């Protein structure tokens, strides 16, 4: 067997895995702080990316665009907290989960309604096609670069959790809501913080994915890739999201390439889920997650 090719597949898998983690992070943040599984994360990615690219198309300078988009995502978070989370605060988590599916549809519609659905081209000035050659293996530079962004984002987030007041509050909330209040920040505020943060993560993910795929409706479907990542990595762990992403990325690519030859291509659509299913059966809380207390 061709080992250089194996390396290429393996590393390629790792790199796209990081891209999944990038999306998964948004889920983790919200789940960590509110126990809500936010199905709408994918739509938020779409919304952020669309906002960003359309503003650029209008000729708004990049930095300003970034600032505005962040602002928009924060507004979105506030809106969600007011309209959806507050009324559902003491509801069963499964109800909240279904509500976020509704939210997902709402945002998808809204995003395309105001920004239109034509493909937006996002050039970050990084050559998508250049690659390092290691032996006969090609390692795409853009993917490496995206991986670095994801990595640094994770770093920032973990620091944020460890050293800022809000961060600590969030972790407190994760443990129990009373504790959060004792930190002196009302729950609603905290939720706004979390969803804003998730929105900003979505923006980063959107920009990276968008520049890779072109900004369009389809990028909201990357969320579906992130779900098994979460199951495997654990819903509550930021590093877990990364490791989970890597496992899923590698797993599906290797399966597609080496298994696919025998049982037919297209495995990568379900392989991560089967992987997740196995993890669920053995260790429901995921590899890095905290033990699930009968919440859902």
């Amino acid at each position, binding site marked *: 067997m061709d080992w250089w090719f194996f390396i290429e597949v393996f590393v*390629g898998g790792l790199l796209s895995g990081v891209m999944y983690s990038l999306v998964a992070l948004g889920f983790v943040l919200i789940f960590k702080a509110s126990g809500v599984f936010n199905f709408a994360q994918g739509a938020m990615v779409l919304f952020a990316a669309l906002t960003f690219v359309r503003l650029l198309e209008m000729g708004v300078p990049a930095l300003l665009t970034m600032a505005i988009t962040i602002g928009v995502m924060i507004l979105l978070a506030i809106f969600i907290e007011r309209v959806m989370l507050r009324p559902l605060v003491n509801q069963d988590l499964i109800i909240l989960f279904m509500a976020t599916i509704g939210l997902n549809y709402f945002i998808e519609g809204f995003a395309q309604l105001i920004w239109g659905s034509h493909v937006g081209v996002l050039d970050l000035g990084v050559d998508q096609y250049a690659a390092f050659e290691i032996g006969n293996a090609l390692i795409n530079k853009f993917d490496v670069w995206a991986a670095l962004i994801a990595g640094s984002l994770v770093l920032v987030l973990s620091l944020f959790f460890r050293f800022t007041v809000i961060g600590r509050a969030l972790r407190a909330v994760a443990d129990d809501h009373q504790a959060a209040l004792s930190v002196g920040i009302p729950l609603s505020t905290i939720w706004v913080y979390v969803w804003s943060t998730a929105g900003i993560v979505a923006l980063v993910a959107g920009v990276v994915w968008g520049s890779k795929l072109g900004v369009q*409706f389809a*990028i909201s479907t990357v969320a579906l890739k992130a779900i098994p990542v979460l199951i495997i990595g654990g819903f509550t762990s930021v590093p877990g999201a990364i490791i989970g992403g890597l496992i899923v990325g590698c797993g599906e690519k290797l399966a597609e390439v080496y298994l696919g*030859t025998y049982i037919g291509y297209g495995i990568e659509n379900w392989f991560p889920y089967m992987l997740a299913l196995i993890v669920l059966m053995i260790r429901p809380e995921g590899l890095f997650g905290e033990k699930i207390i009968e919440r859902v």
Partner: protein
Amino acid sequence: MVYRKISTVISFFVLFLVSASFAGEHFVPITSYRTGPYGVNGAPAANGFVDYLKMVNARDGGVGGVKLAWEECETAYKPDRFIECYERLKNKGEAGATVFQPLSTGSTYAVLDRLAVDKIPLITMGYGRTDASDGSVFPWVFPLMVNYWSLSTAKIKYIAELEGGLDKLKGLKIANVYHDSPYGKETGPILAKQAELYGFDLKGFPVAHPGIDQKATWLNVRRYKPDYVVLRGWGVMSQTSIKEAMRARIDASKMVGVLWSCSEQDTIPPGKASIGYSCASMINPGTNYKVFQDIVKYVHDEGNATGPKEEMANQQMYRVGVLMGVMTVESIAKATEKFGNKPMSGEQVRWGIENLNLTDERLEKMGIKDFIPNFRVTCADHEGSAPVKFQRWNGKSFEPASDWISTDQSIVRPMIEASAAKYAAEKGLSSACN
């Protein structure tokens, strides 16, 4: 609030029932999809279609003095939604719907059985059910100009041209990267046939909908080390394929896309990756044909265009949409020649389509000379097997990459007839031609 909702529901239905009654007009149902994963392709096509109809009304006052009326219905590329649209629009207008164009293979399949009952023809230009080209079995379906299989033969010819002769195909490795759906699978059999005929090696690589993540697929393609890649993509898949191809160090000039991977949505996002990428088309690139000048003159300048003006120049799908309009109108025109200047019914238009004969003079008159090749439909041959034009993307726009390449009916026709015969046997149909 329940009651209020119900009452609004009712009131709306009443409204729409009384609203669209198109007296004394040819009714053209337009089933478009401006949304969903394929909206990016569907929207410009619909705009082109509608703009052309508007132009005809403005320029010629309709067809044979009878105005064209149309209603658009969003299918979101879903067969069940298309059926709903079909059922809703089929009886609109004084003489009922003239002809449907689903612009979706799945939808085509879904209404196949209903056409004969409703006596409404279907034009499926460059898509749909291939063996419907056999008019003796499928009297109501018209895969005009070129169907999937014919197209495929032209594609292989084109590759041979690049290589310098059909004999050069021997020993080549050709990868068929296709959308994992009825549309994508349709060319499997014909390619296999050609592979054995010309002695090239063929391997298929399916890409699951929507096809935004194809890394693994292209790793496989790369491992296969193909000389050429036939790209049978649709929607977001195509552009992603072109990108991944370059990432996998497969040169765009070695990629040949099909009809539906041949628009700017596919070639612009990949940037430099798509320079040199070529793809099949029913039409010549560019807009310097009379028909487009007329659309500008009678529609855009009048300020009642459906979409933005740039579309015409930088949207292949817009031009395809215009072509759809052209075929509809021409069929109606043909029908009026026989049945007189009154609103045409589906059945009458069916006759019109079946007797289409687009000679150069005719094309000249229609202002689309050289925009499309000339071809002729017969009862047996609902395709007219028009030649195919290949276009190459130069980084800014498409330009002709070949002459009109004729399709190889000697391969396609027998397969079509065999397949059609099988269908006829299943359904117990007798030949519609004599």
